[in-house]
C-alpha cells in the first residue's frame, strides 16, 4: 500500500505519441502543505503528465508516483487522490446529484458525502438539474466536487480556472490554499502564470515537455531583474556613458526610450549628468512574472507577427 506521505514524484518521465514527443525526461516533486503550480504553454505536455500521474496514460519511460506508488497500486485511488481533468466528463442527461452519487458509491463513501461536496462548491441549488444544461463554470465546480468526494489527501487540477468567473476564481484560490494548509497536496496546472500567481507557493514550469524551472515562486520573483526606463535628450551619448561604466544591458524601446537593466534610476541619472545629457523622464520598472514565464517558455509554437499592412498605391490628384 501507499505510504501516506502526500508526495507526488515524477522521475524521468517521457511519453511518445507516435512521432510526437509529448513529454521528455520530466522530473519534479510536489510536497504536501503547499499549492504547486504546474505551468507551461499550451501543448507543453502538462495534461499528458497529469494523466500519466493518474494512470490514464501509460508512460513510454520513467515513473510517476503518488504516496510512493504508481496510481494503479493505490488500492482505493478515489480516497487518496482527487482529480479535475476536464469539465466535459459528464453524461448530459444525468443530474449533478446523481453524477456524484454514482462516483460516491464507486469510491465507497455514503451518499451524504455527495450532498456535502455539492454544497461546498456552491451548486446546491442546481443539484437536481441535468448537467447538459450547465455552464462551463458550473461543470468545473461539479468536476471539483467529484474530485473532493473521497476527501483525498492529494488534489490534482488541470486548468481548473477555465470557464470560472472572477468570483469563482477567487473562491477557488481561497479554497485550494486552505486545502493545502491542512497539510494536503495540491497540484494545479495552468498556461497562464498570472492566473495562478496569487494561488501557488511553488511552481514547476515546463516547455516542450521539459522542466524549465522548479522551486518556490518567491525564488522566481527574486531572480527577476528591475530595469530603468529613461528618456534622455541624446540616446547615443547616454548609452555610451553607461557602457563606459560597464552597464551592458541596454535596450532601445520603440517609443524612443532606453531600457537599462541591472542598475537603479540614481545611477542612470548620475551617468546622464556626467555625460551632459538631459533627462526628460525616468522610471523604474519591475519585470513582471509573466514576462519571465514567457522568456522561460518562449519559442514553442511561437506565432508570427502579422505582415505589415501594405498601403495601396493610390493615384492622387495632388
Amino acid at each position, binding site marked *: 500500500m501507499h505510504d501516506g506521505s502526500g508526495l507526488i514524484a515524477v522521475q524521468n518521465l517521457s511519453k511518445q505519441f507516435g512521432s510526437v514527443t509529448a513529454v521528455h525526461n520530466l522530473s519534479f516533486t510536489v510536497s504536501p502543505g503547499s499549492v504547486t503550480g504546474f505551468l507551461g504553454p499550451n501543448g507543453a505536455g502538462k495534461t499528458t503528465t497529469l494523466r500519466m500521474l493518474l494512470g490514464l496514460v501509460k508512460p513510454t519511460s520513467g515513473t510517476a508516483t503518488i504516496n510512493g506508488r504508481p496510481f494503479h497500486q493505490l488500492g482505493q485511488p478515489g480516497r487518496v487522490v482527487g482529480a479535475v481533468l476536464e469539465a466535459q466528463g459528464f453524461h448530459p442527461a444525468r443530474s449533478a446529484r446523481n453524477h456524484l452519487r454514482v462516483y460516491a458509491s*464507486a469510491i465507497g463513501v455514503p451518499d451524504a458525502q455527495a450532498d456535502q461536496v455539492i454544497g461546498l462548491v456552491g451548486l446546491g441549488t442546481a443539484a437536481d438539474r441535468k448537467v447538459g444544461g450547465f455552464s462551463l463554470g458550473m461543470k468545473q465546480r461539479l468536476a471539483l466536487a467529484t474530485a473532493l468526494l473521497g476527501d483525498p489527501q492529494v488534489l490534482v487540477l488541470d486548468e481548473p480556472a477555465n470557464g470560472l468567473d472572477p468570483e469563482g476564481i477567487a473562491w477557488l484560490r481561497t479554497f485550494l490554499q486552505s486545502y493545502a494548509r491542512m497539510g494536503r497536496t495540491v497540484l494545479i496546472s495552468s498556461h497562464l502564470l498570472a492566473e495562478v500567481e496569487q494561488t501557488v507557493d511553488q511552481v514547476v514550469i515546463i516547455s516542450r515537455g521539459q522542466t524549465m524551472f522548479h522551486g518556490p515562486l518567491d525564488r522566481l520573483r527574486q531572480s527577476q531583474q528591475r530595469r530603468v526606463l529613461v528618456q534622455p535628450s541624446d540616446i547615443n551619448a547616454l548609452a555610451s556613458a553607461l557602457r563606459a561604466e560597464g552597464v551592458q544591458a541596454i535596450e532601445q524601446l520603440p517609443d524612443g526610450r532606453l531600457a537599462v537593466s541591472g542598475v537603479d534610476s540614481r545611477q542612470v541619472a548620475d551617468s546622464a549628468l556626467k555625460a551632459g545629457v538631459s533627462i526628460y523622464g525616468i522610471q523604474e520598472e519591475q519585470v513582471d512574472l509573466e514576462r519571465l514565464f514567457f522568456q522561460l517558455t518562449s519559442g514553442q509554437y511561437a506565432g508570427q507577427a502579422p505582415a505589415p499592412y501594405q498601403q495601396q498605391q493610390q493615384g492622387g490628384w495632388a
Partner: protein
Amino acid sequence: MGNLVQAELRKTTTTGLWWGLLIPTAVLALGWGLATGLLGQFFVDFASSSDVDEVSDFLGVTPDQWKISLFGMARAINISTIFPMIFGAMAISGEINRRTITTTFLTAQSRMHSMLAKMLVYVLWGAIYGLAIMLFLGIGVVLTSESGQLPDAGGWAMLTLVCVLSSILMTMFGVGVGALIPNVAGTIVLLLLYFLVIENVLHLVLAYLEVPAVIGFLPNGSINGLTGSVAVDLFLSSAGVVPTEIEDVLRAIAGAGGALDWWWSGLVFLAWSGIVFAGGWAVTQSKDIT
C-alpha cells in the same frame, strides 16, 4: 467490488437509456407475438384444407394441434434481443464517447475491476430485458393464438429460460464489442450489420456449400440455435415421428438451421462473448485515455 457494481448500476438507472431501449424491445416482442398468432392461424387454416393432408400425416397430429407458435416465438426472441445487445454495446463505448470513462477509471481499483463490475450489472440488465421480451411476446402470442398451438407449462418455462439466457448472452456480447470498438456509432452499425445482414448471407453461402454445420458455430448461428433448437425440440416432442428432411426444414424455420443442441449453442455463443470481452479488455487495459 460491491461498491463498483452499485456505481455501475446507478449509472444505468440515472439515465433514460434503459427504458428508451426497453420500449422498442417490448413493442417488437409484442408485435412479433401478435403476428406469430395470426400467421399461425393462417397457416393452420391452409394446412387443414385437404390439399396438404400429407404433411399432417408426416407429423402425426392434426394441424390445429401443431405448436407452430413456437417457431414465431423463437424468431421473436432472436430479433428482440438485438436491443439488449445494443444496450450492452453502449456500456463502455458510451462512457468513452461521453468522456465519463476518465472518472470511472479514477475511482476504481483497476480498469479490470470496473469492467467486471460493468459486466455483472449488464448481466442483470440482460436478464431484465429477457423477462420483458418473454412477457410481451407471451401476451402477443396468447392474444392471437389458438390454445392448441401454444406450448404447455413446461414449454413456456423452457422458452422463458432460453429467452433470458439469450438476452443475457447478447448483452454480454454487446459489452465486449463496445469495449473492442470504443465508438458508439461504429459499434452499433457493426453489430446490426453483422447480426441482421452479414451472417445471414454467410448462412446462405454455407448452406449452398453444403456445410451447414458450420453455421451453429458462428455467433448469430449459435445464439439462434439456443432458442431455435428449444422451439424445434418442443414442437417435435408433441408432433410424433418426423422424417429427418422435415426436421431440417423445421429447424430452418425456427432460425436454427445447422445449429447444435440448445445448451451447446449457448456454450458456443458464451465462448464468442468471452473472446470478444477478452479482446475488449486487452484494448481497454492498454488504452491511453487522453
